[in-house]
């Protein structure tokens, strides 16, 4: 935590609350070492989020490619009018 505070223009309590959110979402894990609470990324969890977004993108992009083709056709038709 003390390492993080130096890197951002955020106060210690703000960083602390962000870390809590990340921890509750399972994106980081924290241990206790004496007074310190070292944080570690949980890459598997992050990957599931990005996979998920990629899937959403893939689905929409499939539709949008067809829309591109349709729009090109509509533009062409407009030119000929």
């Amino acid at each position: 935590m003390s390492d993080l505070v130096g890197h951002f223009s955020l106060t210690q309590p703000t960083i602390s609350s962000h870390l809590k959110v990340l921890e509750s979402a399972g994106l980081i894990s924290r241990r206790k070492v004496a007074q310190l609470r070292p944080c570690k990324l949980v890459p598997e969890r992050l990957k599931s989020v990005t996979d998920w977004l990629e899937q959403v993108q893939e689905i929409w992009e499939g539709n949008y490619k067809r829309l591109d083709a349709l729009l090109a056709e509509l533009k062409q038709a407009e030119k000929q009018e």
Partner: protein
Amino acid sequence: MKPAEASLPSDTEVQVKRSFDAPVKLVWRAYVEPDLMRRWCGGLPGWSMPVCEMEMRVGGKYRWRWRNEEQGQEFGFTGEVLEVIPHAKIVHTQIYDAGTLGGCMGSEPSIITVTFQEISGITNVSTTIKYASKADRDEALATGMTDGMEMSYKQLDAALGEM
């Protein structure tokens, strides 16, 4: 055009942005004219859109339904239009009708907001789906999209690759 970009603006939302190389009046037509819409929206190999009805006015209802003859499967969406600003914005509710495909996208309707903005001949379209709760959103993403639709879109990708 750059591929669609999906993000999670909040716990209950999914947002997809994409730009199109066409003026907004044409993009708008592709969204509000059923005959045009059924040509791009989910018309996948094996799937047809036998029902594509919409009344683009505040309080108007819409009904979209897709059917796969070979698999004997059907699913759809229904909802009501909440706001229409021609060439700029459409807001409507959406309820997933699982048909024979199954899956669930939450018990409460979600709210879809589509905005259109033209900048020098390029139209930016942003679609935000707001679910009634985080649980609904997670359910929709887990079921609806991974099950039937993902498979179908993979087929579409393959078909586009052959073109």
